[in-house]
């Protein structure tokens, strides 16, 4: 179905987490590398709290904007249960990078549904390649919870078909206006995200996506 020359990245999370902005920066990096790009923004009806996914496809020429189940090279999950929800989109050799944040919706608090025990573990049990980490506490350790999104981008940086520096320079550009201190803080968050994944996966697996 989808050409081998196309990279499919699925970013998922909850409204208000910054899923769309993160995907936008990934798209900018792909454009900087000369790729054709399509990026969808599919959110539910309200402002906050619902399921959000963003599909990013890039390569020499992208036709359909939709990613099909079973075709994702890298799944970037901003929340555990959301990563689990979309894990069937992964290719058999695909990689899930999951922030193990647990955001429990009111329907679960009301006792109407259960939150899954250990979503990353369930994905592994289903045969998925999963790296999970706590992006928010990494960000908190760096002194600013809002750096969590840049930690997430750092996490995926070594698993793209181009150099991590391309993505980093797009992040730099985003924060340039806010001054050198903010740029430096984001650089640290980016590096922390990279090493969080590398410490679990090792350096050998890098750039699993087609070059």
């Amino acid at each position, binding site marked *: 179905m989808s050409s081998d020359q196309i990279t499919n990245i699925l970013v998922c999370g909850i409204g208000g987490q910054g899923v769309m902005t993160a995907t936008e920066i990934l798209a900018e990096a792909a454009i900087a590398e000369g790729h054709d790009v*399509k990026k969808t923004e599919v959110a539910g009806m309200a*402002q906050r709290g619902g399921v959000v996914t963003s599909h990013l496809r890039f390569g020499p020429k992208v036709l*359909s904007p939709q990613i099909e*189940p079973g075709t994702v090279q890298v799944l970037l999950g901003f929340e555990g249960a*959301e990563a689990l929800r979309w894990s069937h989109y992964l290719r058999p050799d695909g990689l899930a990078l999951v922030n193990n944040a647990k955001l429990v919706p009111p329907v679960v608090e009301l006792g109407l549904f259960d939150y899954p025990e250990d979503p990353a573990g369930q994905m592994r049990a289903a045969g998925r390649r999963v790296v999970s980490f706590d992006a928010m506490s990494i960000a908190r350790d760096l002194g600013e919870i809002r750096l969590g999104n840049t930690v997430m981008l750092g996490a995926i940086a070594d698993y793209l078909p181009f150099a991590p520096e391309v993505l980093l320079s797009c992040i730099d550009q985003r924060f340039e206006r806010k001054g050198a201190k903010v740029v430096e803080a984001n650089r640290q968050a980016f590096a922390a995200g990279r090493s969080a994944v590398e410490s679990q996966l090792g350096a050998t697996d890098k750039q699993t996506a087609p070059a």
Partner: protein
Amino acid sequence: MAAVMPQTTHSPAPPPAASRLLLSGNEAVARAVWESGVRVAAAYPGTPATEIIESLARYPDLHAEWSVNEKVSMEVALGASMTGARAFCAMKHVGLNVASDCLMTMTITGVNGGLVIAVADDVGMSSSQNEQDSRYWGRFAHIPVLEPADSQEAYEMTKFAYALSEQYETPVLLRLTTRICHVKALVTVAEREAHEPAGFVKNPQRWVMVPAHAKQRIPNLFKRDDTLREFSETTPLNILEAGNDRRVGFVASGPAYMHVKETFPDAPVLKLGFSYPWPPEKVRALAAMCDHLLVVEETEQLLETEIKAAGIACHGKDVLPRIGELSPQVLLPAVDRLLGKAVPPPAVADAPLKVFPRPPTLCASCPHMGIYYTLSQIKNLIISGDIGCYTLGAGHPWNALDTTICMGATMGVALGMDKGRGEVDKNKRILAVIGDSTFMHMGMQGLLNITYNQGNVTVLLLDNNTTGMTGGQATPASGKDIHGKTAPRVHLEKIVEALGVPPERIKVVDPYELPTLFKAVRDEIKVEGPSVIIGRRPCVLTEEFKPFRPYLVEEDKCTGCGNCIEVGCPAIHVTRRDRVVKPSGREVDLAFVNIDTQACTGCGLCVQPCAPDAIVHVPRHDIPIHIVKS
């Protein structure tokens, strides 16, 4: 050429010509509207079309506006066109229903300055009450329909539409879907061209649509259809792409074309960019070169029916679904079925794992929570609802909304219930809930109808000072225009009074003040005749909202009663559950809670039902600085 990001804030200078921009379909249409020299662009917000006008408002040298509803936006565009100005209006699919009264006569007068209507169909229904196919309006109104397949085409077709509109003096329908509007792709842009209006020319036979004049002009519609059908055969927007694998040939438009090309790259395809009137000879040529003809369209069986009526055998909805989005995953098994191949069941590895649903929630501190918590505590109500964030009141934990139909329907429905109810509903109280923006869109007439016809309905007008659900757009009652500049502010109390509600039956309450709100609802539902309770608090996502000190739960005081959970705030979380047996022998489930102080903005709604006073303010020194806005 270097890629340049689109501006996301107010900017005096749009990106220059020849920039390659990553644009959503909506942003691409906006850029093309601006480049086409359009002077007037109007819309009411509606997903997935909202960002077209939002984006246009950032361009110079044109009048962009939030109109109060889609019908008015189309009338504004028509008026501009009458003066010779190029004009534009945008709406979601259901918005075109509202505007259709204008459309069905505007097609008879025709246009002077080019006029393009962008209509965005919510295929797959991510945020709408129905999934209707706007291509029907092309047939009904005898106007051409263009269907782009991605952002670049959305940009190019919009520009083409202005030339087409002026050449044939017709409004042009630009049919978008969610997968155009909300997909970002690269677009190469150009300069804005000047377009000076030629001036309004008095011509009652053309512009005054009384029967005698309309009768003279209606034959033009049919002539125009015929001319445009010929044009459809020659326009480069309709391309027959020959392919080597000629078992199945495809007729496709919009995003469906991309799915076909992705799935069957070697098959012949007739791509219909100009999809109404469609080109019969081109379809015949395609049919002649392949074994089977398959029409791939979202969503109705429309082209397929018309192609069959023209005597051309084809397939379509016999193998493809009639609702929802198409995709390669949907197309592949459908074509297998058509070719008589066995369709393998989906691989187990591809099956989704079971995860709880995560419906959208009201935000922490959303004023609607106070309203719905109150309504959920009162028995014997029938609550007619409307369209906005407050439609979520139908969900858990409130279950306090009983109907939702269309924009502004709440009060008409409530009056009908009041007048139609029999003995069985005699003792129930009928309420109508509506938001401020929806009230001004199409709700005011419903209230006037209640007062005029002396209905017994209590109206809850939820004034959060914005159009919340579409992202917080200004309204006539917010005192701001589309650019955020000061605009005359209308007073909802005065409108309500002018519509015939007695002044003593109009109450303005703070939805955070639960006892006052509760009393107001209790009092007003007892009174015969119409009354209006205005719940006034700004939407938490607008600048007007100022967060308060957050709360926390003193865990040793929490008794697990769960009252606070019934408020429905997403910042309240259960830490522990228990089941105890009361002295009466009754089993009771307990849920002990905490509050996510990062998410809490201190509205205090949960404090009020907390029986043991376990919810208290976070100590001042513990408040993260960025939570408390100055």
